[in-house]
């Protein structure tokens, strides 16, 4: 498995560290939202513990610790290990998406 880092080009996956699924979003309740504690707890339980565990293409966080030290979001097939795209994680850079194989 080789990962096309948008900053460093295609590198072997030993340079990268995996965090996991990029789709869970941290719940954001305003202090005065009036939500019940149960609903807030349910939302955090879902965010922290529950996973879609996709068989197929999945968006996921990788950290390029052996290279540019950027956080990346890859779209990768968990059944075939094929990468569809690797982009910088939002907020850390302005790289354009790099298509796998380019």
């Amino acid at each position, binding site marked *: 498995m080789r990962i096309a880092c948008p900053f460093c080009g295609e590198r072997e996956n030993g340079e990268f560290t995996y965090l*996991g699924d990029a789709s869970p979003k941290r719940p954001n309740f305003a202090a005065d939202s009036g939500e019940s504690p149960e609903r807030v707890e349910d939302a955090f339980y879902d965010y922290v513990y529950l996973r879609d565990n*996709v068989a197929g293409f999945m968006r996921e966080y990788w950290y390029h610790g052996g290279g540019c030290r950027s956080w990346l979001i890859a779209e990768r097939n968990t059944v075939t290990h094929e990468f569809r795209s690797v982009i910088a994680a939002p907020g850390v850079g302005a790289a354009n998406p790099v298509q796998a194989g380019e």
Partner: protein
Amino acid sequence: MKYSIFSLAKAALSGHKGWTRAWRDPAPKSHYDVIIIGGGGHGLATAYFLANEYGIRNVAVLEKGWIGSGNAGRNTTIIRSNYGLPGNTGFYEMSMKLWERMEQDLNYNAMVSQRGIINLYHSDAQRDAFARRGNTMRINGIDAELLDAVQIRKELPFLNYDSPRFPIMGGLMQRRGGTARHDAVVWGYARAADQRGVDIIQNCEVTGFVRDPNGKITGVETSRGKISAGKVGMAVAGNTSRVAAMAGMKLPIESHVLQAFVSEAIKPLIPGVITFGAGHFYISQSDKGGLVFGGDLDGYNSYAQRGNMPVVEDVCEGGMAVMPMIGRVRMLRQWGGIMDMSMDGTPIIDKTPIDGLYLNAGWCYGGFKATPASGLVFAHLLARDEPHPEAARFRLDRFRRGAMIDEKGQGAQPNLH
């Protein structure tokens, strides 16, 4: 046919022509009291215990490939009960006691070999942690011995004791631990379950659930047609999330690939199981002579049953660090299996929120040693609708309640357990 020294001698004298198949190959019936999805060790053990201990014999085990083709045939065959946390300690010791009588119970040679397992320690802090775990085990009636380097050197003279980076200071030994022949465990449970009336149906993939208007699960759709069932139990390891998704359920589980390795066969060298405490590396020697070893997960979600080179390198480095002579042996085979990694590293054996559907999952990479106990407690749950006392902590809602059993202390990061 009952296997014994006499049946063996009789068959030998008749040119081994009299052996019959060890289990039937039935077509699926239209209804079963209990359907187990997954013909691995856990599913077959569940069916055996349902029939043998709980008197429920109208049971089918559905397997999409052939039995034992998943993790039951992909592990490193280690059995042990050296756990430290309440919940795990008693459960795995119950499993060890079932291993000790399995061959008599099943009338099948599973080659259970209590050749001992030693976890090496390499620092003062690690020694203290191992001493604590050993004491926890002994308080719970499990055997454990804390050995120093001089004692270990007598038994395992070939290890790298004086490495300047990771000197071996000692180890925690469980002499009742060891290995078992993983395929024979599958075959033994299959044969014993079949003899008690269980239908083992291979090449039968579950493609969906049948539900009544109230949402209760009343059967399964399969590649061999619809089969109705009183209860459905899942024991599908790495495919847990996929099967659960068919019922609309999202679980605290990720699927990850774990690789394992076998060297060419050599003469007897390693007496038991050895684990390296400064990295993640474990090794034993099979009765055929091959060194069987493994290490960490690859670390990324995967359903691919194959891994990548960085972990191969990491595992081999671990081997070289603890046992430099391993560098002279050639690697013969390598493969991957898909682990159902739970969010705290501990299994889930529970009723699901969906009526009629029962879950046995989250075995991480420790499922093989649990095979007999997993079968017993899951059969108990399916038969009685309440958890077995030794599995009472393995509930699905423990994450919601904050009652995790996190043996490694890594938090909700499955690839680190």
